[in-house]
Structures are given as C-alpha cells and as structure tokens.
C-alpha cells in the first residue's frame, strides 16, 4: 500500500489523485459548492425541465391514518437479500441488509440482517423467562414484564456477523452488490437493561470469569462471554429503534455485546450461566473459530476489526457521465469510534480525507462522504478507516499474508470498486 501524500493540488479543492475534492465541500454544503465554482463541476445539465401540471394526488383526498406504517409502495425493491437454508433446513440460512439501497446509519428494523441456526421461535412473552445461575449467590428468574420495569440504557451500535464479507477471501472478486457481500451488517438504537445490573442482583461469586448465554430457539444457540465484557457494556436488549425487538432479532429479548462478533449477541436469550471457564460450545469451536494456514486455529476472536466500505457508487451502479459525485460509505470498528476515513480514486496511490457525518459514536456505523469529480476515465475507488485506537483497516493482501485464505471469519480488508469508462462499476481485487 502506498502512502504517498496527495498530489499537488491543481485547483484549491483537489485533495487526492483522479478528482477527489476537499471534504469542506460537504462540511459547508451548498455554499462551498457555489463559492468554489462547484456548480460548474456538475455533470452536463439535462436539456430543460418539463412543464409542470397539478397531479391527481394534489387534487384528491389522501389515504387515512394507519396503525403501523409501511414503506412506500414504490420502494418495494428495498428488501433483505435472502439466502435461504438448504431444503430440509429452512431455518439455518441468513438474510442481508441491502446496503446499496439504504442511507444514513440506522438500519430499519425490517431490513436488519438475519442469521439463524434453526429458524425463528414463536415465543409467548408471558411464558418466557431469563434465568441467571451458576457461580452466583442468588440464582434468579426474571419475567419479561419484570425486566421492562428496570432502568434502561440506549445506544446506537452496529451488529456484524463475523462471517460477513467472507467472499472477500475468494480469489475471484464476486460480482455481487455491496449488500450481498457485506450486508451481514446493520445498526440500530438498542435499548435495554445493562447486564451488569442483573448480574449484580444475582451476586457474582469469586472465581467467576465467563458467562454462558443461551437462546430459547430450537438450536438453543449458546456462546461463552467473558465476564469482563458482561460487566462492561453488555445489555439485555428489549427494544430496537424504539419498538420492541422483532421476532427475528430475538423477541422478547436478546443479549447485545457492542463491537463483538454478532453470533455472541444471543437472540431469544433465556439463560445466563456464570462459570469459571468458557464452555467451548459448538458455535465457538466448530464454528466462529478462525483456521490459520498452518492448521492451527484462533479461538475467541471476538472484537470486530476496523472496517469501511463505499456503498455509493458500488458494484452494479452505472455512472451517469462525467461530473461531480458524492462518494458515500460506512465505517465502523468493534474497538471504539472511527477517527478518520480516507478515500482513494486512483487505486490507493493517493488518499484524501473524507467528511464524517455526525454523530460519530463508539462501536457504531459512521457515514462518510467525499466529493469526487469523475473525469469519465477508469478509476478504482477505495476507502480505509482508522479507529480511535489507531488501528488501520488492512488491505486484502495484508489480511491474507497474516491469516491465509481459509479462516472464513473476520474479513475486514479494503474493498475496491472499479469504475470503467463506460460508467460500469464492478468489484475487483486491486
């Protein structure tokens, strides 16, 4: 990877090669565009606007209220990308957030990615219980109703499956959309009871070091969570984006472990067993462990690495002719806040700093934007993120040098998109 400073600016707003413009264009919005002659950069304007008429919807009574709103009928194509399980195991697949079709940072609950191990259980909240036992002074059982009476915290944080972006390990860059490749990633406002409050009520005993979390689904999915994490920022989440958590996200409650691989945020949470050692469940040994080239495996790779993606333009987009474009994408890190995102339009030879859209939150998605004047020629767009610990997102080559090609999980390499002179945008390893 080259870290050459940006090439000398040929006009005041150029910050890096092949047309990347200063982020001030977005920080000060329209004023800057006009002030720096930005309007002149826009693509050739369409020949002329059409004559306006008053449409029917302005001249008739509109639809009445409804109990629960749904997206516009014109947005029907905005759907999760569903990868069903094989015949005979319909509950073992997943579905992905269509990252190319959404904007901002909050994922609508109905578009949050899914990954289940034996389908979505149909839980009666009146019968559901959360049990805390093991190395505690007072083994306790909680009803949903009782948990709803606890003081809550709310946090806007991402959830990412550690199997997200696994196609990145493949030698051939897959011609699939950004959501199809990287959409096991979503971000919500989660509201619930800090797990530390419940553990405190049960009274954690000396010698405790891990907490086994188990779901009430028919996989009874279970994972071992370090006690330090459980006492730090773990939450028993009951609410998502203001409404009660949906069935596919763990209704009536899920564990939420900020920044950790998604599988550990156990859905349909029913049992927490405080232990002195990890349980070594199937989903933390057979799966979700990372095979290295020498045949050894990394166990307990919990924290999601620093990562970013350009979502627009991305694979499958078609550029509308030379001119000014907004490059937009997402950056996140399981270790904390995003400090900086850099974008390159020349395949990584030069980089310019992108504008981060407020709020920049810890273990959350941060939207970045960069102005780009596409000259109509070939280009390779890349983004790379740096988090508050100083960790820099690696290239694909760096990842493979470190971990080989068969570790399957935790791919967080730089994602390049190639722009052809035709305007076609494709996925490349570059």
């Amino acid at each position: 990877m080259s870290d050459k400073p940006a090439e000398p600016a040929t006009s005041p707003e150029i910050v890096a090669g092949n047309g990347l413009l200063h982020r001030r264009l977005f920080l000060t919005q329209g004023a800057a565009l006009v002030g720096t002659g930005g309007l002149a950069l826009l693509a050739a304007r369409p020949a002329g606007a059409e004559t306006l008429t008053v449409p029917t919807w302005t001249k008739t009574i509109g639809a009445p209220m409804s109990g629960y709103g749904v997206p516009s009928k014109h947005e029907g194509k905005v759907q999760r990308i569903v990868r069903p399980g094989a015949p005979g195991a319909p509950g073992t697949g997943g579905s992905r957030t269509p990252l190319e079709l959404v904007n901002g940072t909050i994922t609508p609950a109905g578009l949050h990615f899914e990954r289940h191990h034996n389908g979505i259980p149909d839980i009666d909240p009146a019968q559901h219980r959360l049990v805390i036992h093991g190395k505690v002074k007072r083994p306790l059982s909680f009803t949903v109703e009782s948990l709803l009476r606890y003081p809550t915290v709310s946090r806007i944080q991402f959830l990412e499956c550690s199997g997200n972006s696994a196609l990145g390990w493949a030698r051939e860059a897959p011609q699939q959309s950004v959501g199809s490749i990287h959409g096991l990633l979503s971000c919500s406002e989660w509201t619930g009871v800090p797990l530390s409050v419940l553990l405190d009520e049960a009274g954690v005993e000396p010698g405790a070091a891990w907490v086994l979390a188990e779901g009430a689904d028919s996989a009874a999915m279970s994972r071992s969570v370090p006690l330090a994490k459980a006492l730090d920022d773990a939450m028993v989440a009951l609410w998502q984006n203001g409404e009660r958590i949906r069935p596919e996200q763990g209704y009536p409650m899920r564990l939420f472990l900020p920044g950790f691989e998604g599988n550990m945020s156990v859905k349909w949470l029913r049992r927490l067993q405080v232990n002195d050692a990890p349980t070594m469940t199937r989903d933390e040994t057979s799966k979700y462990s990372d095979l290295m080239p020498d045949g050894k495996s990394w166990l307990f790779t919990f924290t999601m690495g620093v990562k970013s993606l350009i979502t627009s333009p991305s694979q499958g987009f078609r550029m509308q002719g030379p001119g000014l474009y907004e490059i937009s994408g997402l950056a996140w890190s399981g270790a904390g806040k995003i400090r900086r995102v850099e974008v390159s339009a020349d395949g990584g030879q030069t980089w310019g700093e992108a504008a981060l859209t407020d709020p920049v939150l810890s273990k959350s998605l941060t939207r970045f934007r960069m102005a780009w004047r596409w000259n109509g020629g070939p280009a390779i767009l890349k983004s790379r993120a740096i988090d508050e610990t100083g960790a820099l997102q690696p290239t694909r080559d760096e990842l493979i040098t470190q971990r080989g090609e068969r570790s399957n999980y935790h791919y967080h390499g730089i994602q390049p998109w190639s722009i052809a002179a035709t305007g076609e945008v494709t996925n490349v390893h570059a």
Partner: protein
Amino acid sequence: MSTPDRALVVGALLLAALPVFAAESPQLGTPITPAELAAWDLSIQPDGRGLPAGSGNAVAGKTIFAEKCVVCHGEEGKGQPFDRLVGGQGTLASATPVKTVGSYWPYASTVFDYIRRAMPLVAPQSLTNDEVYSLTAYLLSLNGVIKERDVMNAKTLAKVKMPNQGNFIVRYPEAAR
C-alpha cells in the same frame, strides 16, 4: 478476590457506567432452585461438569444414527446433504481443509452438549441421555477417537482427549483486529 471486593468492583463499574441508576435496580428477580431450572440446564463444560447420568456405546449409536441422523449427515457421518461429521484428519493445513468432529473439534464434551440441545434438526431435545451418549460414542468411534465397544458416560466422556485440542490459540483478550 473476596466476595465483598467483587461487589465493590462491580459497584464501581456500575457507578462509572450508570451514575444515575446504579443504586436503583428494582430487584425483581425471583429465586430459582437447580431442580426448577434443570430442564434448561444443558451446558457441559470441557472437563465434563454438567454431564448427566446415563451411558451408551457406538454399537447402540449406530442404530440410532441410521434412524435419526443419516438422512442429513450421510452413511457413517460422511456428509450430505448437511455437515460432514467424520474424517478430514490431516487436512487442516492443506488448501482444502475438512473440518469435522474428528479433525477439528477440540473437546468431546461439545459433541454431547450440541447433539443433546440441537439435534436431530427437526426434533431437537427429543433424545434421551442414553441416546445422546450412544450417538456421541458412535461419532467418536467413527473418527477413531475411541473404540466401538467403549462405554461413554459422565466419567469416561470427560476423559476423552480430542486429536485437535492442542491446535487452538486463544486470542481473547488480545483480540484480532
């Protein structure tokens, strides 16, 4: 660390994170006894803690497997349509690693734990403990970890050492980024 110390540490963490609410938990948990939660208390630790009474061997396991598992995991667990459970030893460092119970899983306790909670996929938690011991014995014997007539129970299963156990490197707390 003594009990009061732990309470102090927990309290301090709570205070740091939640200055307003720390002291205000409504304390609504109901005490529950081990007998009351027994039906949910499914986890087995790698040293065998949690293993129930009962026993079985691979001979019995073979019959149960043919009836309840073979449609999804193939003859002798060789796979298809779903996960391969047998073989693959010596492939992990190759270009085409085959991860199975025998080649990959670090602990035998996990085989019992997982089959009891999650298999067969269409009827989880329908097997008796004897059936789970028998199926565990069958998979371990197909993988050459134990002999066909070896009886698996809470004592013997806890002593089984899996071939790949030494090849896992714990990455927490210095988690990969």
